Structures are given as C-alpha cells and as structure tokens.
C-alpha cells in the first residue's frame, strides 16, 4: 500500500502554512518567549530534549513554539536538525555519580547515604486547581522569588552523592559492577538487527517516546509480566560533560546536561537452585522525565527476565517488540503518513471490491 506522487494543491499548501501562522498570531496574547517555555514548562521541554535526542535547550523551546505545542513534531524538528550538523565524535563514558543532584529519592530504603531530597516535585501535592494562577503577573513572580531567596541560610551541602546500590554492593547483596569495554552501538548509524547489544537497547529507549514506553511498561506492571519493581534510587540532576582539553588532554567541563536516572530492584526466583536473588533494571534519559526513566527501567528488567528464562512470555519482554515500537518519530511518522494521498492503491482496492461483489451477485443469480 503506497502513497502516490501528486501534482497541484500548491496554493492550498501555502494557504495552510499561512493559516497556521495567522492562528498563532491572532488575538491579544503576546508571542511566546523561548525562556518562558524552558522555564515555565520545563517538563514538556525535557520531554522534547530526550525524544529529539539532542540536548539543545534553546532549540527545544523553538521546536515547541514552532510546532504549536505538538511534542512529537517538536522532537521531530530536533532529530531533523541533528542531520544538518557534522559529527565531531563521542565523549568518554560519564559516570552519573558525578551528577549535581537536584532530586534524589529511594522507595526501597528509608535511610540512604547522603539522605533523600525531594527537590521540586508535585508527588505529594493534591491535584487541585490553583485558580489564582489564571491571573499571574510579574509582581507575583517577584514576590515568590523574594520569599524563596530571602533569609537564605548558608547551605553547605554537597551536590554529588554515591549510588544507593553501591551500599548493597559493599554488603555483598549485589554482584560487583563489571564495567564493559564494549564500544556502544550507534543507533544513529546502524540499523537494529536482532539480537542487539545492551547499549543499543538503552540508547533506543533513552530517546523513546514517553507514552509508548509507559504503555508497554504498564502492561508488565499490571500483570502481563513478572517484574515487581521497587525504586532503589531515582535521581535527577546535572551531569557535567567532560571532554579532553585540546592542549593538556586532561578532562575539562564543556557544559552540563540534565539527566533523570532510575535504578529498580526486583526479585527473581532462579530456577536452578531456587534461591531468589536481587535483580536490577536501569533507565536514564535527557531532561527531567521520571515516568520515562522508571518505565525504561521496568522494560530493561522485563527484557532481562526473558533472556534469563530463555523464553518471552509477553510483548514487554520481547526486545524486538519493545525497541521497534517506542521511537516517537518512527511511530508518529508512519501513523501520519496514512493521511498522504493513497489514491491509486485505494482506487484499485475499490475496483477489486466492485468486481468481487459483482461475482458474488452472479453466483447467487446463476441457475443451480
């Protein structure tokens, strides 16, 4: 079933582009400022950063503005923009223990080294409208910031913290972490031909669409799978990007990247000796996106379960099913292409349908 080449419609297409612009500009609201999008809609902004797979905060804001708020389209803009830039290379692997944490919680453990810090989260708030937000002005913002920063105690706090799971490793409750020397699989250059290595799985999910990952992970959580996860650690913060200084060769900080990272702990009964062991799942992505990181870690565990068992019991355990259906640009693109003219194919379908109906009528009319 193929979409076909067409001619004509240039005026309508131009008219449509102009209409989008006109609808945007009509009315009394002021043009959106890119800073407003980044600062006042940071979670939507984060979604676009990770699904676009390009950490460029300013362009992510522009993408949201230009796409009229369509996060799938906005991510598409970033992906397309990537293809216009030269590839300078790869960084060395970053250890997220270097993260300058803004939020760090554990559901598995009450007391963790360094403590738990909620950061900015709506987790414990009621989902009740604050109608006063309908009428905010700069004066309200001034007051809020004055109150937050006024009477500021001298907070001498570290910003980096050890991993919660390192404590379990130190106690021998988890196997020591063996760092792999393998070069990461580059999903931007190589197609996924299964089985794929773990680095391909993580990279694919890291830029996966949040809703897609969530639905598949939820299917596992709800009972179509066997993962019973507890969040060992969820951390959000800024990872300093280190690259070699061009002259000295020693690591220098080129910037920092907001990252969400989740490690889940699940139990899995090993069939051979019957003794249950702690098993883990991992999720990480650009931006502040907790649902995505948790969903990613559940799917990571689900796929590992299938590998350990030697069989796939449900779609969330199937790496091919998961990895081929979570990319937002691929899925949105395919879905949206159905709107493109398919006239010739459909015409031939109509002709075949008519011919089949005629044959069926002739068969009922024919003498027995």
């Amino acid at each position, binding site marked *: 079933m193929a979409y076909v080449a067409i001619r004509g419609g240039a005026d309508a297409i131009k008219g449509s582009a102009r209409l989008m612009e006109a609808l945007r500009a009509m009315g009394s609201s002021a043009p959106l400022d890119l800073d407003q999008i980044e600062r006042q809609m940071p979670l939507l902004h984060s979604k676009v950063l*990770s699904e676009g*797979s*390009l950490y*460029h905060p300013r362009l992510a804001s522009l993408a949201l503005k230009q796409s009229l708020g369509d996060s799938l389209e906005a991510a598409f803009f970033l992906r397309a923009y*990537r293809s216009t*830039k*030269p*590839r*300078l*290379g*790869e*960084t060395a*692997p*970053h*250890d*997220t223990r270097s993260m300058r944490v*803004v*939020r760090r*919680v554990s559901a598995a453990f*009450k007391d963790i080294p360094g*403590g738990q*810090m*909620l*950061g*900015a989260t709506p987790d414990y708030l009621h989902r009740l409208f604050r109608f006063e937000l309908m009428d905010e002005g700069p004066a309200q913002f001034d007051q809020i910031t004055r109150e937050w*920063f006024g009477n500021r*105690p001298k*907070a001498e*706090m570290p*910003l980096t913290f050890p991993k919660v*799971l390192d404590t379990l490793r130190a106690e021998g409750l988890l196997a020591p*972490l063996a*760092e792999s020397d*393998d*070069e*990461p699989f*580059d999903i*931007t250059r190589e197609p996924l031909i299964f089985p794929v290595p*773990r*680095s*391909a799985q*993580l990279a694919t999910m890291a830029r996966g669409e949040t809703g897609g990952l969530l639905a598949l992970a939820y299917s596992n959580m709800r009972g179509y799978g066997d993962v019973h996860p507890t969040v060992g650690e969820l951390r959000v913060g800024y990872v300093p*990007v280190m*690259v*070699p*200084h*061009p*002259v*000295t060769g*020693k690591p*220098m*900080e*080129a*910037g*920092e*990247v907001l990252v969400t990272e989740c*490690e889940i702990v699940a139990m899995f009964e090993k069939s051979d000796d019957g003794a249950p062991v702690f098993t*883990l799942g*991992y999720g*990480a992505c650009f931006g502040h996106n907790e649902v995505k990181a948790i969903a990613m870690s559940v799917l990571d565990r689900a796929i590992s379960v299938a590998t350990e068992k030697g069989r796939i019991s449900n779609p969330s355990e199937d790496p091919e099913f998961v990895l081929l259906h979570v990319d937002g640009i691929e899925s949105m693109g395919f879905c949206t292409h159905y709107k493109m003219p398919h006239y010739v194919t459909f015409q031939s379908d109509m002709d075949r349908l008519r011919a089949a109906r005629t044959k069926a009528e002739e068969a009922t009319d024919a003498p027995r």
Partner: protein
Amino acid sequence: MRPQRECWASALAAADTAKVTALADRIRGRATVEPLAPPREGLMLMQARDSVAGAAFHLGEIPMARVHLRLTAPEGGADGGAALMSDDLSLVTRLAILDAALSADLSEAPEIEALIAEGMAVRAEVHAQRALALDRTRVDFQLLSEDDV
C-alpha cells in the same frame, strides 16, 4: 592561586560575555592566531555508563564546539584550546585565545584572571541555589507505627 587550566573555559563562559569578547579581541588584535586543528562546531554523542550492568551507551547527542590554536604575541605565545557545549564558534575561539594568553602569561593575564574569578562566582551562586533547594527539601520520613494511629 591561579585555578587549574581545565577550569578556565567553563568559568569564562559564565562571566560577562561582552567583557570576554572585548578582552579576547584586544589580545587578538596584537597577536597572530593560527589553528592547530580545524575549528569546528557540531554534535557529539554523549556516552554514559549504566550503573546496573556497566554498559557504556549513548544518552543522546550534545552540541560541541572545539578550538585548538597557537597564539603568538610580540613578547611570547602559547598553544591554547577550549571546548564548550555550544554552537557559537566565535565564543569558543575567544575562550581558546584567553586560554593561550593566560598560559603564556601575557600582560593581559590579570584581566583574564579577574574574568575567571567573576565566572567562578557566578557558578558558585548556581551551586548555592541548588544546595539551598536540596536543603529545604531534605526528607526524613518516619514510618507510622501502631502508636501513631
């Protein structure tokens, strides 16, 4: 005490851009500058290491601009370099010029050090704001026992 060389670029990037530009352009005006590698801005794949199985993987792509040059002033010179998560090649070129000028101890060195100090203060303030946020949202949940109910 002069901060470590690898901290200079990130500090200068946080300082007042107009001052950084003016100082770097003034030094460039009286020196020759030649590239030792193609000055480029583009994208790099950012590798992270998964802390559960130890696999290195790509989190995604980041913008990066990198300049490596040789600065020669009448009284001396040095190689300089800078790399920044940015698509502004002009800015990174200026950071590389300041890196060379400071490591060659040219006469502008005190001004460069002052800008570095200014940038480090800006970064320290960001750090302080983050510390404040962590401090005010520190949690010490108590499990409800039967006595509390």
